[in-house]
């Protein structure tokens, strides 16, 4: 256990899918001696990169799960939280970002800042994560670190400062010039493990001097001491490091490192940068909410002596049972002690505590504030907070978006039913954006999530991890209904079937909530003089609320509606809560059509990137899908098309885009907003709904 918090770094490595993140992670583990051989990503030699431990990930060459692994560099304890590289898994990225103190933003030296980098960067900004940049793949043809560094400034608005210069690029890439020490650095040995520092080659001397001056200029903004030292020509390495660290922590400076992870160049210097410039747990302020005081925010202190506060940020069912990845924010988490889940109030005993290294683990006795460890066999959900029971706090709730797409699934044989239930139970606990429910009408199991790929991955995991083959229905878009104008209602519910009858009368109107009001529903009681007895008002509200689950246009939930009840009548014998609920439902039925209901559809923000020559083809794929092109950016032979496209039109887009662009373009997509469905699409939906209802009868 490391007691000195200044020697802990919790970092993430975040990047576009193909920028070589997994290779970089693996090299880091190699140089820090956590693994003893290097294998390639995408399973070329069958072993696969160590971080990519899920079979599925191995096959696709991408990392989906954010596992945490720890390693040691220069006497510092570094926890690496692997963040997924696809927008469909945004919740995973965001959860991982929550527990990081700093991050490496990996950029491809050829393609530079791509759409995914933009998304990830925006997320990091939201979670206030200080970053270093690593420009990778300098050995590739077309690599240009200067241009990428410029893009960091222009496209991402970073105050990017190159800390290094390349010695040769493309096939001639040999090493880097360290602008702090003003030395040439070469990486020798079979795996680049021997660092050889020498004089800067004469032909690069001038360029290096200029670049160092620019670096000092930018960095001195953060240190008066350094500014003075520059004037008096007594700059020391230590002064530069201090200034860069200050700038990085304030998130007003992004130091840029470079090299080629694949060719074993530059990784060790990047690690030095991580240790020198990225924050330790005490540099970052973390807050929780006080559950005893109306969720008022309280600042946690990374003090091992204080009461425990820990966040379960990731669940995983590995081959040894259920693992809960946990970040300790305050206090100490020790084996054999009791901890309390703030959400469920349940008490758990810490049986086993481990440190994770990809898919191996090491038992430990305790972990203190600032550390990231895994708990064994604790029942909980992702995002739960644990304390020692002496305080009632929760880490502030994380923003969880509503799912936008759903799909009906059915196990292919009945024997698999049990396993299916098990799989769904676990996925739901692991990922709050993944939901599972049984449709009461069709009795089908319906899973929902943030995109087609998101659901595809879970369907594959069912097959691989739980041996459940499922049949899937067509993906279903999460439409909404809303009303567009005011409509009055005046409804009497009356039933007389011997004995006591049912009687309830309600009057009032429904109207759209004003634009910008995010609430799904508002109920306003304006009944005067007890026209409806007060005790029945909740029943009226309940009746309206129950009508919202299924709109009368196409059977989707109704949002953005205000109900105002201003009159009614009760009967001294025949009125009941049930009667008023029924009256409210009847009132809604009677006036919904007059309120001119419309369909809202989820619209996705789409970004497609590829070589400029395919721009026309890409634009066409957008137009064909009722898309609105927002804009196009052209740079260095690449173009990026940004558009908004209804989700309903995006199924199968990956395949179509591949065939239109010979597989050279790629896209990212995330939910943007709900928009009114245009007339033609509305008509199609109405017809389909009518057909379905006929079939059901």
């Amino acid at each position: 256990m490391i007691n000195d918090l200044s020697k802990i770094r919790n970092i993430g490595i975040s990047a576009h899918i193909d920028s070589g993140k997994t290779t970089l992670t693996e090299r880091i583990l190699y140089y820090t001696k956590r693994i003893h051989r290097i294998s390639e990503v995408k399973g070329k030699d069958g072993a696969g990169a160590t971080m990519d431990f899920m079979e599925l990930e191995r096959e696709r060459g991408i990392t989906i799960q954010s596992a945490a692994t720890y390693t040691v560099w220069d006497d510092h304890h570094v926890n690496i939280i692997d963040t997924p590289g696809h927008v469909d898994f945004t919740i995973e990225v965001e959860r991982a970002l929550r527990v990081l103190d700093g991050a490496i933003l990996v950029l491809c030296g050829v393609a530079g800042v791509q759409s995914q980098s933009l998304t990830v960067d925006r997320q990091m900004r939201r979670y206030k994560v200080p970053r270093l940049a690593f420009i990778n793949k300098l050995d590739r043809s077309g690599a240009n670190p200067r241009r990428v560094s410029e893009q960091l400034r222009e496209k991402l608005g970073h105050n990017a400062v190159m800390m290094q210069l390349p010695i040769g690029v493309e096939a001639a890439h040999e090493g880097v010039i360290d602008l702090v020490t003003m030395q040439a650095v070469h990486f020798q040995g079979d795996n680049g493990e021997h660092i050889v520092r020498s004089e800067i080659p004469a032909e690069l001397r001038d360029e290096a001097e200029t670049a160092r001056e620019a670096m000092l200029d930018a960095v001195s903004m953060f240190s008066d001491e350094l500014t003075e030292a520059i004037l008096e020509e007594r700059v020391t390495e230590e002064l530069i490091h201090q200034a860069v660290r200050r700038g990085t922590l304030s998130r007003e400076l992004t130091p840029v490192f470079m090299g080629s992870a694949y060719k074993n160049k530059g990784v060790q210097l990047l690690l030095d940068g991580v240790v020198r410039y990225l924050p330790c747990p005490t540099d970052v302020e973390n807050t929780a909410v006080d559950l005893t005081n109306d969720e008022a925010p309280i600042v946690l202190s990374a003090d091992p002596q204080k009461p425990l506060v820990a966040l379960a940020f990731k669940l995983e069912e590995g081959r040894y049972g259920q693992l809960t990845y946990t970040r300790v924010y305050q206090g100490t988490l020790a084996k054999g002690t009791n901890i309390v889940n703030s959400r469920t109030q349940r008490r758990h005993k810490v049986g086993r505590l481990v440190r994770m290294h990809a898919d191996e683990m090491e038992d430990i006795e305790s972990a203190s504030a600032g550390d990231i460890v895994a708990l064994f066999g604790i029942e909980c959900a992702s995002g739960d907070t644990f304390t020692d029971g002496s305080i009632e706090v929760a880490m502030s709730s994380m923003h969880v978006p509503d799912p936008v797409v759903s799909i009906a699934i059915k196990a292919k044989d009945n024997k698999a039913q049990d396993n299916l239930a098990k799989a769904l139970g676990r996925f739901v606990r692991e990922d709050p954006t993944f939901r599972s429910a049984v449709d009461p009408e069709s009795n089908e199991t319906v899973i929902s999530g943030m995109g087609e790929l998101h659901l595809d991955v879970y369907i594959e995991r069912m097959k691989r991890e739980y041996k459940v083959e499922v049949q899937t229905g067509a993906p279903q878009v999460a439409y909404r209904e809303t009303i567009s104008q005011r409509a009055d209602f005046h409804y009497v519910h009356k039933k007389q079937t011997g004995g006591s009858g049912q009687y309830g009368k309600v009057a009032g109107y429904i109207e759209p909530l004003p634009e910008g009001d995010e609430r799904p529903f508002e109920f306003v009681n304006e009944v005067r003089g007890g026209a409806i007895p007060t005790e029945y008002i909740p029943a009226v509200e309940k009746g309206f609320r129950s009508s919202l689950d299924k709109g009368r246009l196409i059977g989707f939930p109704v949002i953005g509606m205000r109900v105002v009840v201003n009159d009614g009548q009760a009967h001294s014998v025949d009125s009941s809560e049930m009667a008023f609920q029924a009256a409210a439902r009847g009132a809604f039925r009677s006036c919904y059509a007059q309120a001119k209901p419309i369909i809202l559809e989820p619209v996705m923000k789409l970004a497609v990137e590829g070589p400029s020559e395919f721009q026309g083809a890409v634009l066409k794929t957008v137009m064909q899908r009722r898309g609105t092109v927002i804009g196009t950016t052209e740079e260095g032979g690449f173009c990026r098309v940004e558009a908004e496209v209804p989700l309903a039109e995006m199924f199968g887009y990956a395949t179509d885009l591949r065939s239109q662009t010979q597989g050279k373009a790629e896209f990212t997509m995330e939910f943007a907003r709900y928009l009114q469905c245009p007339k033609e699409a509305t008509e199609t939906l109405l017809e389909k709904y009518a057909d379905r209802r006929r079939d059901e009868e």
Partner: protein
Amino acid sequence: MYRRYLNARSPLRLLEKGLHGGLGPGNLGLVLAGPGVGKTSFLVGVALDDLLRGKPVLHVALDHTVSHVRVFYDTVFEDLAATTHLANAKAVHAEIDRLRRIRAYSPGAFDAKRLREALDLEAGLGARPELIVVDGLDVAQRSREELAQWGAVARASEAEIWISAPVGSERIPSLPEPLRPVEDLFGVILALEPEGAGHPGGHDAVALRALKDHDSPDLAALHVALDPKTLLLIRS
């Protein structure tokens, strides 16, 4: 009718009244301004005027990203919609988004040839912009031959092309020296200057003044004050 009111606050109304008939299709217009005075806002105002009339617009950004430009449009539009109580603002907004294309290039990499390529591409998709605004072109560094090419593109596409160019100082008393030799290539040349007692971080208004109006010698007719944030007319 709301839209007419919306458009009544556009600086374009003045161009049409003050200038003798506006810029006109096939012509190049140039607007000069110092740093931070509002080149982009002015062009966005001009573009919105056409967009609100249902005309397609191409916006070329040379020193902004696509999303940055979009925020400009959204801000000016929302301000307009709020102050004029525009009905059905959401639908109008969506329509504007559909009619507008933003294209971002790195500043050095854009010229008349790239513009022609972009227009061909748009034409292939069935969109012919009637107005093209080019934000942040270093006009003073371009050759006369190249600027003549821009004129040719304007005539061939029958579009109005408004170009904004940065100048070094806030005050622009007359056409800067380096632009004199190419003055004849532009139909209209305007200058934007801060007006009123400046306080830190802003100024009271922005003055719009004509430095050239086709062949008309009467330049005094156009001199108006615009809101410094949205560059819409302060007094209509």
